[in-house]
Structure formats: structure tokens, C-alpha cells
């Protein structure tokens, strides 16, 4: 030690004495940081701070002698490859560690990295999750888990996770924050929300969810508060398919194709092998249907998705013409006499002659003209499909439905199943009434539904958006705010990345920035994303491995089940779930809200909810205890939901029931309960006619704002009239499944292309690009062009183009309230411009250009942005042992991340397969299907021009 060091040392000791004189840490105010009372658990499960040693506050020699000398083996985590084990040699030793799983606890859960919510288990040891795997007890996913779920550890232990509540200190969107305590955060939120409530306009508090799997908890809070302004992304997802299903069925908005028992699967634009609400459960059953049951899979898709690419046959129709092909197939099947006359006559509400007449213009030759798919193939596939009946089914999803004519596409596709009589049949086109947790499980009673109205939640222009259930029209929210049609005093966003996932990024950003439109914005998320960037308070959210839910989706077993999401470990930092602080918030807001939270703890609530899960005779455990052990319980007492329309009504049902002579519809107390069929009283369909409604008078009348109370009564359940606010917003909806083509597609100019959108198998829409193991596989999204198209535009692989996108001409006519933006010299309204590289692919229609979503983040961690972290420290002060100038934060990320793009968007220096990609929503205009409100993600007309 030299003199100056000695001097410095002396000063430090003086500082220490001064500090010690002031007092111990307690005097410095280490306590009083607020935010609950949770403390870190100790490794051996004893209470923190309790020493089992012989001296309080002393060093436990006995323990020390047991563990000293091997500090880095204490945790049971051996050295990890790619990551320096410090101190000590860098070599792996005893790898793989045969003791890794020894003594690990297996805790069940439910994945939430996409909407399929597969059952998972976490292997937990010493308070850390070692690995996440599928739960074989999940009857739907059967223990399988896709790449997203396997990246759960990236999500859980991401070094850039939000850990503390933050409050904005600069201008909104400026990115300046300070940490606050939970008490401060909840106090401020409560004051703001109470003010909204007291203003008499509770609907000016909006809750805006991305993926939400705690619906019960959010409903309870919003209903107790008194607002029904709950916004969602359903119209960006599945609105049209749901509306088309509901038109036929009413009972369910979700077709569950019984593919495992099928002989023929006809897929219109669904990419079930990569991304689907039923992804893993559905995909495994499709493959079982094919390779165990001999089914054939035929796919129509503009782009060769992995589903299309792995199908037995693939056809690329012109974008948005799925419905034309489906109707032509119906036409061909009836022309060949291969239709199921019995089903049509008995179980639909049209006659064979009516149907044949309706289908008459939709010939395969006509369909070839609009779709480009050869008439001969349409006939051949139609015939094969019909011959496989009843074990045949269609499947479709956003590929057919996210179009301006999507509602008609999906009705046409579904119609095929009625024509061949596979509706509700084993191996056919099925559904179930169980879209969530088995209804035998009931949460503690909640408040009555709030009855407010907001144009944001129920825009009057979209007749079918909120008729059978609340689908809403998410993509208009920010535009309507900017148009002054509504304002929000308070806005709470939850697991939402709207600037990235909503069409017209610039509109979203403008609305989120404007404090006159959104008075106060609380953002709840695990990571700082593009939405959080525009918040006033950010609340750190627990991951799906740290919180409670009862969970289930529509099961492909066609019967209900229950899955449990339970904390596998203590939440990191101060992350908390809404289930845990909504009660506190309600308490602070008061005014009666608090009385809905007298159920005890979150665990008490879940225990109550799960109490009817029956006892497993093998373990003697039921209710929550059974779920904590097994994760899932399937209600196998319930037969699969095949042919529910044929279920005979019970005598008790029929007491005091009335049969309508003309229609056979059976009503009781004015509500439909069934229908007479061949002298039998059966359940029928839950529609006004109690039949599969090929002709829907209901949707036509709803479109015209007419009263439908009598129809709704005969349906016996779902369905609603449009509210008074919708008056004056009439719209023509065809009774029959017909088809049209948007004008801009009908007359597509030679230089125009139709942009289509897609999702990768390793990503969801906006929440996975921060996970390094997934980003490594896909991080960028060059635009796909057919080589012929590329040649025509003089571009080749890796060349860059400028894409100009246009607002829909069809919508200019049908939805003038949406029109905004400037026209170019050609008279088209420009929606956006963006520069991207191209990749030529054989698997895309020559008139289409495809870009994926998920890419193009400008927040959401350095991983999502494909950037290394801050510049590494200079290493000249490397006096501390183990310092390594190359090693900085995530050593793996800093050292090994190979796809950083340093070109700054310069086409000349850009390297293939690098960078974070481009946000397609800079190009896509707000484009809701005028009937359902579903965003038309696959219809945007664009032009391209080579640059660079």
C-alpha cells in the first residue's frame, strides 16, 4: 500500500466512524420503503433474519464449517456454458449436472406466452426455476410446449424486467422516470380513479388489455368501479371468425375442428402449426389425424406458411378469395350430388333447392377467375372433402377472416361443413359451450355488471361487434380519441403493446402522448414496452410463473377442464399482480368498491373458485389441493360435445313448454329450449330457428337496427339488440353466406400488390421479441416477394424497396368516418411508407407481398431491439478479481449475440439476417371489416419501388 492509498484508507475509516456515529442502517431509513410486507424467503424455508445459530446477530460457526470453501457450489447450479463461472477455472466440470433435478419441486402452472395457455410445470430448487416444461396432465396440450413456452426462463429472469413502480417525471413519452413505492403509486392511482368516479362519468376510465387471463379479477374491479369501458384486441385477432360462427350457432363463437378423428382437413388460411389460439393442442391433433387416422390436409393460403408447407397440398389463392373458393366447393358438391341432403333438410333453415339456387352463380370457373385456383382443383378437392364426410372439417382463422370481406369468407368456409353434414360430427366441424374454466367452478360472487356506454367500447358503426359477446373494435380506439369522439380521464393498460401491434403506429403514438385525450395513464407490464413509454405510472407485473389464475381454453377434447396457474416462486423485486393490489386500490377508492374484496387473500379466492374440483381417489385430494398437485383436472364425466343438437329434451324440460306449430320451435317461459324433429323433442341449435342458420334474418335485422327481441328469446341465450346509440348507423348484411371482393382488389392496378401479414412460430404479436432464445431464431422480417414479381420490379434477394401503402377505397365508401390522411397524385390516400429489404420466396402468390408482425421494436429491452447493451467499461481498472472487460451484464448476450445491425438502415451495408426488423403497422391502415370490426390485416394495397 503506497502513501496515497494509505491516506485514502484513513479517510474511508473516518467516514465509517462518522457514519457509525450517526447510527446503523436503520437510521439511514432503509426501512419505510413501502410496498407490502413480503420478504425474501430463506433457502431453508426459515423466516428471514432468524438465525439458527448460537448467537443472535452472530456468525454461525457450525453452518460456516459446513459450507465454507465452495461458495459457488452452494446453490446447486453448476457452471453454465457460455457464462463465466467465477471465480475459478472456466472449464465445465461435471456437466451435465446429474444432480440438477435432485430434490427439485415440481410446481404446475399455465404458460401465457401466447393465448393457447398450455399447461406447464416448473422444476423449482432453492427458490429458482430450473426449467419449464409441458404438463402431461393438461388434457388439451398433453404435455407439449412450443418454443415460446420453452423460453419462459428468458421471460422470468430477464435482466431488464421491471421490478419497481415508476412515475413519469418529464413530459409524457420523454422517457424520464423515478422510482416510487407501491403505497405512493396506489395512492395516486386511487386519487385519480376516485376523481373519475366522482365526476359522474365512470366510463371515462378505460381498462385496455392485451392478453388477459385474469378476466374475473378485472371484471370484478371494473364492475365494482362502475365502468364497462374495457377495451381489448379481439378485433385485431378473431372478431370475424367469431361472428361467423355465432351467426350459424349462437351457442359458441369458436369452431373446434375435430381433426384428430378426421379423414379430410380443409384449411383456409389458418397457420395452426405456427400460431393459433389452439396452437399446440390443435397441431398435435392435426398430425394425429393425418398419421394415425389417414387424414389429408389441404391448405389454401396466400403465403406458404409452415402449415401450408407441411400440408399434403397447398394452393395460393389471390388474397381474400377464400370465401369464393369455399362457395364454389359447395356449388360443386351439390352439383355432384355429394351433399348431405338429410342434414341440410333436417338441421339447416334452408331447403336444398334454396341452397342450390343461392350457390348457382358461384361456379368453380367463377372462383378460378377471382382466386386463380384452377376450377378442376376446386372440384377435385370439393369431391374428396365430401366423400370423407362426416369425418371431414374445414379450419380457418385470420388468413380467411382478417379481411374487409372476412365475415363472408368465414361464413362461406363454415358452410361447407353444413353442406356435407359434418357439423357436430366426430371427426367433423365441432364446437363446445366451454370456452373457459369448467363452469362447475365458480369464483366468489362479484358485483353486477356495470352498465355504462362508451363509443370506444361499442362503436355504433360495427353492427356485429358486440351482439353475441363483447368483441369490440380495438383498432378504432385511438382514432376516435383523436377525432374527439371520446376522451379518457384515466386509462389503465395491461399487457398491451399497442404502438407495435395496432395498425397505424403514428395514430397510436399521437393519442397516447396527448394528455388532453388521455388524462392519466397507468401501465401494467413485466417489461418496459412501447405502451409503457407513454404512461404516467408504470407498475411492475408478475410473470405467469409468479401469479394465480384458474385457467382453461376451449378444449379440443370437446369437454371442460380446469388448469391452475400458481406462483412457482416469489415474485422478483416488487412485481405484483392485479389480484393482489386491486383489493388495496378498491379500499383506497372506497365508495362501496371495497365490499367486493371481502373474500380474503388471493389464495383464498382461488381456493373458493376451485372447491368443486372433485377429489382424486388416488390421492384423496380435491379442489385447489388437487390442482396444486396435478395442475389440471379434466371433467371426463362430460361426454365430448358431439351432435348436441340431437340431445333429447328431458320430460322435466318439457313441462309447461309450448311447441310452435309452424316451426317446431319449443319455448318455455317465452325462451327457446329446443325443437321438434321427427316427433322427438331435441335441443337443436341455440339459434332463433333452433337450426343451423344458413339464412340469418337476425344479422340482417341487427344491421338495420331493428328490434330482434323475439329471435333472441327463441335462441334462448346469447344475442342482444343494438343499443339506442347505434340508431342511424344502418348497414346491409346479407342473410345468406354470399361473397364480394373489395373494389381495390377487383381492379388492382398492374403496379399494385396486396400486403399480407403473418406470425412466426417462435413469436407472439408483440411480447416475445425480448426473449433471446426466440429472437435468435427470428429477429427480422424482410418482405416476401415471389421471384417473378421481384424480377418484374427489378429487385433481387437482399435488395431494398420502399413500400407505399394505401387506405382502402372500399372503406372510403363504406366507412367514411375513418377517412384521414393525404391523397397522392394518383388520388389514393397514403397510409404509410417504409423501407425494407426483400427476400424472394417460391411460396407466395405473385400479387402479394408478405411481412411478419412481431418485429420492429424500439423499446422492450435491448434484446427486442437487437442491440447490445451500453458500451462496455474500459478495463484499465481491472484490479478486482474476476473482472473481464468482455463480460458485461448478460455475458452471453454481450459476447455471443450475432445479429446486431450496425448499418443504420443503409441498404449498402445492411447484412442479411441481422437487426430487429420493421414494424409492419407503420404501413397498415386502420381497416375494420364494416360488419364485425375485425381489422383487415391482409388486404392493404401497396406499391413498391427499388431503392439503394
Amino acid at each position, binding site marked *: 500500500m503506497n502513501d496515497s492509498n494509505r491516506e485514502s484508507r484513513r479517510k474511508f475509516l473516518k467516514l465509517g466512524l462518522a457514519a457509525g456515529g450517526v447510527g446503523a442502517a436503520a437510521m439511514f431509513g432503509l426501512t419505510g420503503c413501502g410496498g407490502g410486507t413480503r420478504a425474501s424467503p430463506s433457502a431453508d424455508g426459515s423466516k428471514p433474519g432468524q438465525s439458527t445459530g448460537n448467537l443472535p446477530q452472530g456468525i454461525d460457526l457450525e453452518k460456516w464449517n459446513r459450507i465454507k470453501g465452495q461458495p459457488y457450489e452452494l446453490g446447486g447450479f453448476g457452471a453454465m456454458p457460455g*457464462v463465466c463461472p467465477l471465480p475459478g477455472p472456466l472449464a465445465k466440470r461435471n456437466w451435465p449436472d446429474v444432480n440438477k433435478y435432485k430434490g427439485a419441486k415440481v410446481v404446475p402452472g399455465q404458460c401465457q406466452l401466447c393465448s393457447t395457455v398450455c399447461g406447464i410445470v416448473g422444476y423449482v430448487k432453492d427458490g429458482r426455476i430450473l426449467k419449464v416444461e409441458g404438463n402431461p396432465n393438461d388434457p388439451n396440450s398433453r404435455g407439449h410446449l412450443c418454443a415460446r413456452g420453452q423460453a419462459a426462463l428468458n421471460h422470468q429472469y430477464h435482466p431488464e424486467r421491471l421490478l419497481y413502480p415508476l412515475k413519469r417525471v418529464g413530459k409524457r413519452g420523454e422517457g424520464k422516470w423515478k422510482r416510487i413505492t407501491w403505497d405512493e403509486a396506489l395512492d395516486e392511482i386511487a386519487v385519480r380513479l376516485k376523481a373519475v368516479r366522482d365526476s359522474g362519468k365512470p366510463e371515462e376510465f378505460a381498462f385496455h388489455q392485451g392478453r388477459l387471463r385474469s378476466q374475473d379479477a378485472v371484471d370484478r374491479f371494473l364492475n365494482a368501479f362502475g365502468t364497462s369501458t374495457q377495451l381489448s384486441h379481439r378485433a385485431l385477432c378473431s372478431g370475424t371468425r367469431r361472428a361467423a360462427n355465432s351467426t350459424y350457432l349462437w351457442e359458441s363463437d369458436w369452431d373446434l375442428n375435430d381433426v384428430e378423428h378426421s379423414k379430410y382437413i380443409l384449411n383456409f388460411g389458418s397457420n395452426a402449426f405456427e400460431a393459433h389460439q389452439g396452437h399446440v393442442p390443435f397441431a398435435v391433433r392435426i398430425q394425429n389425424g393425418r398419421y394415425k387416422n389417414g387424414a389429408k390436409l389441404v391448405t389454401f393460403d396466400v403465403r406458404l406458411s409452415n402449415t401450408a408447407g407441411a400440408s399434403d397440398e397447398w394452393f395460393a389463392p389471390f388474397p381474400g378469395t377464400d370465401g369464393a373458393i369455399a362457395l364454389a366447393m359447395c356449388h360443386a358438391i351439390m352439383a355432384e350430388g355429394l351433399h348431405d341432403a338429410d342434414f341440410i333438410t333436417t338441421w339447416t333453415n334452408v331447403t336444398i333447392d334454396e341452397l342450390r339456387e343461392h350457390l348457382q352463380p358461384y361456379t368453380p370457373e367463377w372462383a378460378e377467375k377471382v382466386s386463380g385456383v384452377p376450377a378442376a382443383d376446386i372440384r377435385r378437392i370439393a369431391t374428396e372433402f365430401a366423400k370423407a364426410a362426416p369425418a371431414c372439417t374445414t379450419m380457418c382463422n385470420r388468413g380467411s377472416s382478417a379481411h374487409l370481406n372476412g365475415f363472408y369468407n368465414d361464413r362461406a368456409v363454415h358452410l361447407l361443413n353444413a353442406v356435407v353434414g359434418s357439423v357436430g360430427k366426430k371427426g367433423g366441424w365441432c364446437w363446445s359451450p366451454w370456452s373457459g374454466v369448467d363452469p362447475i367452478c365458480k369464483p366468489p360472487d362479484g358485483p353486477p355488471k356495470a352498465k355504462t356506454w362508451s363509443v370506444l367500447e361499442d362503436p355504433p358503426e360495427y353492427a356485429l361487434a358486440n351482439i353475441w359477446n363483447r368483441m369490440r373494435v380495438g383498432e378504432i380506439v385511438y382514432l376516435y380519441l383523436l377525432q374527439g369522439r371520446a376522451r379518457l380521464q384515466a386509462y389503465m393498460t395491461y399487457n398491451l403493446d399497442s404502438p407495435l401491434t395496432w395498425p397505424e403506429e403514428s395514430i397510436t403514438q399521437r393519442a397516447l402522448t396527448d394528455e388532453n385525450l388521455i388524462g392519466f395513464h397507468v401501465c401494467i407490464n413485466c417489461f418496459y414496452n412501447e405502451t409503457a413509454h407513454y404512461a404516467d405510472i408504470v407498475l411492475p407485473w408478475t410473470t405467469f410463473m409468479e401469479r394465480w389464475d384458474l385457467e382453461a381454453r376451449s378444449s379440443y377434447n370437446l369437454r371442460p377442464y380446469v388448469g391452475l396457474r400458481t406462483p412457482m416462486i416469489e415474485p422478483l423485486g416488487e412485481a405484483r399482480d392485479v389480484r393482489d393490489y386491486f383489493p388495496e386500490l378498491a379500499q383506497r377508492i372506497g365508495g362501496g368498491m371495497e365490499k367486493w374484496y371481502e373474500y380474503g387473500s388471493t389464495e383464498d379466492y382461488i381456493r373458493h373458485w376451485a372447491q368443486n374440483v372433485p377429489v382424486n381417489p388416488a390421492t384423496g385430494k380435491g379442489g385447489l389441493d388437487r390442482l396444486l398437485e396435478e395442475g389440471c383436472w379434466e371433467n371426463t364425466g362430460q361426454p365430448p360435445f358431439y351432435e348436441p343438437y340431437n340431445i333429447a329434451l328431458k320430460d322435466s324440460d318439457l313441462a309447461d313448454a309450448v311447441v310452435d306449430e309452424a316451426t317446431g320451435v319449443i319455448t318455455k317461459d317465452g325462451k327457446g329450449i329446443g325443437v321438434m324433429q321427427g316427433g322427438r323433442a331435441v335441443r337443436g341449435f341455440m339459434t332463433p330457428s333452433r337450426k343451423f342458420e344458413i339464412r340469418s334474418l337476425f344479422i340482417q335485422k341487427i344491421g338495420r337496427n331493428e328490434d330482434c327481441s323475439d329471435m333472441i328469446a327463441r335462441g334462448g341465450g346469447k344475442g342482444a339488440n343494438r343499443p339506442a346509440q347505434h340508431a342511424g348507423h344502418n348497414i346491409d348484411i346479407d342473410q345468406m353466406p354470399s361473397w364480394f371482393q373489395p373494389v381495390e382488389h377487383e381492379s388492382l392496378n398492374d403496379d399494385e400488390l396486396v400486403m399480407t401479414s403473418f406470425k412466426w412460430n417462435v413469436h407472439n404479436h408483440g411480447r416475445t421479441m425480448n426473449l433471446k432464445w426466440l429472437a435468435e431464431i427470428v429477429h427480422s422480417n424482410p418482405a416476401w416477394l415471389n421471384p417473378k414479381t421481384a424480377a418484374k420490379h427489378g429487385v433481387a434477394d437482399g435488395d431494398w424497396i420502399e413500400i407505399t401503402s394505401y387506405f382502402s377505397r372500399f372503406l372510403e365508401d363504406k366507412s367514411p368516418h375513418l377517412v384521414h390522411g393525404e391523397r397522392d397524385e394518383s388520388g389514393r390516400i397514403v397510409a404509410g411508407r417504409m423501407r425494407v429489404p426483400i427476400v424472394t420466396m417460391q411460396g407466395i402468390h405473385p400479387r402479394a407481398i408478405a411481412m411478419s408482425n412481431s418485429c420492429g421494436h424500439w423499446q422492450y429491452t435491448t434484446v427486442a431491439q437487437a442491440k447490445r447493451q451500453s458500451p462496455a467499461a474500459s478495463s484499465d481498472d481491472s484490479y478486482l478479481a474476476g473482472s473481464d472487460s468482455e463480460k458485461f451484464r448478460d455475458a452471453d448476450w454481450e459476447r455471443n449475440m450475432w445479429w446486431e445491425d450496425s448499418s443504420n438502415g443503409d441498404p449498402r451495408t445492411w447484412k442479411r439476417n441481422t437487426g430487429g426488423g420493421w414494424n409492419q403497422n407503420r404501413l397498415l391502415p386502420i381497416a375494420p371489416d364494416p360488419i364485425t370490426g375485425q381489422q383487415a390485416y391482409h388486404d392493404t394495397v401497396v406499391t413498391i419501388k427499388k431503392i439503394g
Partner: protein
Amino acid sequence: MSRDKTSRRDFLRSSVAALPIISLAATNHGAESQQGSQEKFQPEEFWRERMKAPDDGKRYGWFVDTRRCFGCHGCEVSCKAENDVPLGHFIRQTIYKDVGEYPKVARVFLPMSCQHCEDAPCIKACPCGALHKEAGGTVAVDYNTCCGHGTCVEVCPYGAIYLDPVAKQAVKCHNCYHRTEHGLEPACVPTCPSEALHFGDLNDPQSKISRAMAEAKTAEGELQQLRAQKGTKPRMWFAGPAPPAVEDDIPREGQSYSPEAYDIYNWKKHERPV
């Protein structure tokens, strides 16, 4: 009911055959054996014992049903998570290939990893004596011995070994023996949403893998192996269309799995430089 079930298979076969580069490549590499590698092998007495697996009556192997695989990458990410594999390095990978020309195009997927060869060249070439066989024939690295010479990488005909950037040691699939010893399957197997991956005891005719292989044989005829002509007796069998379409693009001696496999510009069969 599978009237037209053969259409995809036939189409893929004809498409692959139509690509001159494939048949050419197949001929070229067909002529190869372990010739180039042999000079890197150690004397037999050095590796003879390590080539023998401790005999517990089991014979582990893999069956990959590429008819079922749809390329989800679940197996690879599960492997990364299980083994904390650094970015840019891979113990297993799935290669995509688009086959055919618009409008007749298909995509095939080939998931693969170490083939756990019975006559493993990596064991023969290992200068430290680190590569050896575990019970059931699992080819594994002893990390108390491996010094990272990388000779195994030079001789592996499947590019299935990489050198860890920090440990400077060879890393490859070890059949997750730390999991199987606890009754778990290798991390990639149970997660597979297409149920395409099978691992288990080939000596047990009732094991899941044996039954899956028998079923596939009935449906497809003889199962395939990758680069069987190399004579290393790999313990991995395949059914379905992917092996002939992808075989040429699998890394070879001196290479390791690389991020290039994920580059969409490389999905195209016809433009891939060899």
C-alpha cells in the same frame, strides 16, 4: 380414405430429384467414407475402451418422424434452456427447406442433433480421451478431461459438436443423461408438439420408440439415416420427406450448427451455395 395421401410424398420426391445439385451432391458425398478423418484418429488402443458403453442391456437411439415435424423449434429452445447453450451455438437444430417452384411448393423440416454413432469418429479422434460412451451408447464428453482441441469437430460427419466460447471445450448432445437418470426424457422429446421426436431403448420392442419406428416402417417402408455411407453407424433414424431434401445442407466435418440455418435466405433449396 387416404386416396390422395401420397401426393405430398410423390411431389417432394419428384421435386428433390429434379434438382441436379442434390443428386450430384449425393454422389459426391456418397463416395466419401471416413477417409479424410482417419488420419486424425488416435491409435485404437487409446479409444477402444471408451468406444464400449457400460452394458446395462439398453441400446439408446433416436427416431425422427419428419412427416410430423412442422419446424416449431420447441426442441431447440428446450435444449437451450436445459443446457444453457450460448447464443450462436446449438446442440440441436431444425433446418428448413422450400422444395419446388411456385405454385407447387412444399416446406420440409429436419430436426437433428448428434447421431450417437456406434462407431463414433469423435471418440476415435479425441486426443484427450474425453469423448466416450455412457450407458446405452450415449456419446458424451468428460469435462474433467476435455481440453478443447476441437478434433472431434473436424471429424464429425454431421457438424453436431461445437466448441464452447468460454469453457473452450467440446459440447454436444448427451441424450440428457442427467435427466434420463431421474426418469425424465431428454429435454427436446416431451415438448415436441408434433410428436415427431422419439428417444429410447431400441432393445425393448415395446418402448415408445420401437413402436413408433415399426409403425413408420409399415407406412413408409425402410427408415432412412443421414450420410449412412460414412459408415459411423448412427443411432438416429428418420421417416418422411426431409432427409433427402435437406441432407446436403447439414453441416459436415469441421463445421458446427450455425445461425445460418435460421436465415430465411437459406430456406431456398435452389440458391444455397454448397
